[in-house]
């Protein structure tokens, strides 16, 4: 199978869906770029080149550059979706949700329910998240817990190029609004990605490794770190299951519970700030539904409750690492087995 980068995988998914379905349009700031400028058209192809080449194939009629007016164009995507298009809007950095959130959570998310099941809003918002770029407090957040919190939104967080392509095609074909999270530090990651179009269903977790001692649930970029940690732990004779939920809404809590029932131990790794994040949500659901199966307290590996700092010296300290995941796993292995009451 051909190796492709995360960037290529997303690009290919967009291209194939635009070929297949003329109602798919893409829009965003500099999504092609060079609008009105004397030099090259498609000069940027999005800030990190993900949409490069779509303009040449589909033209300005379906590849729409926008002014810096997120509230207007994200809202336009919602309105277009409710009236017959399948827009893929680029909210460059998820941190910019602040200037357009109403159009997402009060409008797009709620049409179907508020209108008594009569509306469909098949839109995708692509957005970059995550720390590690020295991009400081306003360009490094995760924020997917905020979207996961909203009924009516679906949230996909691919952990590899293969996942990115399949989840993106699913997102475009899905009839609900989907927020699609791309980690800015993962675009050059490479993976085997089929040439043909394929979908990965939402709400089905992926078991990346099966072990009987501890279940590690990790989100997005953290999946890679969890696998690294699991490799190291295996050398120490601790066998981990590594589970990637792929989507946080819908969330495949069933697979997580099933795994915890087998291992009796859970570590959840989430790059989002620790209060009300995916780790707390998953932990609460497991504690509620599988308390009897737990042999040790659940551990959560997340950054501290602080904004993402700029200085590399601080940002490196902020981000969860394979070492921190390893330490959490060792600590749950060391916890005394809980006595039955």
């Amino acid at each position: 199978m051909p190796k492709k980068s995360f960037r290529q995988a997303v690009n290919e998914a967009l291209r194939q869906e635009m070929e297949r379905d003329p109602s798919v349009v893409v829009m965003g700031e500099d999504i092609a770029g060079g609008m009105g400028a004397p030099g090259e058209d498609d000069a940027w192809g999005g800030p990190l080149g993900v949409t490069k080449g779509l303009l040449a194939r589909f033209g300005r009629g379906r590849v729409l550059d926008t002014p810096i007016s997120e509230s207007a164009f994200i809202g336009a995507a919602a309105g277009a979706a409710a009236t017959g298009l399948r827009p893929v809007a680029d909210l460059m950095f998820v941190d910019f949700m602040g200037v357009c959130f109403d159009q997402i959570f009060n409008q797009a998310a709620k049409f179907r329910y508020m209108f008594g099941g009569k509306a469909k809003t098949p839109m995708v918002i692509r957005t970059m998240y995550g720390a590690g770029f020295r991009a400081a407090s306003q360009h490094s957040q995760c924020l997917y817990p905020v979207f996961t919190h909203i009924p009516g939104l679906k949230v996909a967080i691919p952990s590899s190029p293969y996942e990115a392509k399949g989840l993106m095609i699913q997102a475009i074909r899905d009839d609900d609004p989907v927020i699609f999270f791309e980690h800015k530090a993962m675009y050059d990651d490479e993976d085997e990605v089929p040439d043909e179009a394929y979908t990965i269903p939402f709400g089905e977790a992926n078991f990346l490794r099966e072990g009987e001692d501890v279940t590690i649930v990790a989100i997005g970029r953290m999946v890679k770190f969890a696998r690294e940690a699991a490799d190291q732990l295996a050398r120490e004779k601790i066998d981990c299951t590594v589970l990637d939920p792929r989507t946080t809404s819908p969330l495949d809590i069933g697979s997580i519970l099933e795994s915890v029932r087998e291992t009796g131990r859970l570590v959840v790794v989430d790059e989002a700030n620790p209060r009300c994040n995916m780790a707390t949500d998953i932990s609460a659901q497991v504690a509620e539904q599988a308390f009897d199966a737990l042999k040790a307290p659940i551990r959560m590996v997340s950054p501290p409750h602080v904004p993402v700092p700029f200085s590399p010296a601080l940002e490196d300290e902020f981000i969860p690492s394979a070492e921190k995941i390893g330490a959490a796993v060792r600590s749950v292995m060391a916890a005394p087995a809980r006595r039955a009451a």
Partner: protein
Amino acid sequence: MQLNRDDLLRAWREMRTIRAFEERVHTEFAAGGIPGFVHLYAGEEASAVGVCMHLSDRDVIASTHRGHGHCIAKGCDVKAMMQEIFGRAGGLCAGKGGSMHIADISRGMLGANGIVGGAPPLVCGAALTAKVRGTGGVAIAFCGDGGANQGTTAEGMNLASVWKLPALFVIEDNGYAESTASAWSLAGDPVKRAEGYGMPGTRVDGRDFFAVHEAAGEAIERARKGEGPSLLHVKLERFFGHFEGDAMTYRAADEVARLRAERDCLASFRRRVTEAGLLDGAALDAIDREAAALIEEAVSEAKAAAFPRPAELLTDVYVSY
């Protein structure tokens, strides 16, 4: 407002310092010493300095992601700025903010900003403070041509007008928002937008320090007299890419070279003051050397400075918690 010899020397020193700062940050970034996203202000100096020459510490400005020039013009410590950009503990924001978030509230510098359109509403608040507390201060939002299209900017202008705030909106139109031409993205005319919100709007050539200085002076005086906000649409040029690393293929091949030759606000200032006999070349050259030396020191000190201690990760999230 008349500019005396000291004013002119000060204007030159500030513009030169900004230019030297940015040219150096450009090479240091290319060499790999500076982390993160960096947006340079070179080419636009006359706007920041022409406006901020009218201000003192009681006045507040709020800036953009392209904020180094505004910071220097508002009196931020250049060495502490450089340390900030290098992510050092001695930086103006303790290394936590970086290039996009340099701020110094004590100098009335409410921050560069990573969010396009972040400044205009904040400036309404700063202007309100000045009005309620009767400080006589004014508040100024710098905003790009791209930022002019944010809802926050539209709302901020309307609010400033309705509340008759001592505010000024400076739209720095450098022709581009990232790779997108302002000729395309900026529908209508910013000056007419101002009129639409019931405030005076003036277009001014950002190559001409004197024109910016004069237009800003009038708007600021009006604000200080309690007559409400204004807008300046400053047409100027960006000499580097949108951010450091931008290949700029959307620009014409010879565009930057031509702009540097024909539209350099520093060259224009120098020509004007020397030809009019207001300042002699030797005085300007001396300032150039001092600015270069300051930047040299700032960089070598920044490189030698310590990074923040890991424990600093957890400090200053709240005042108390």
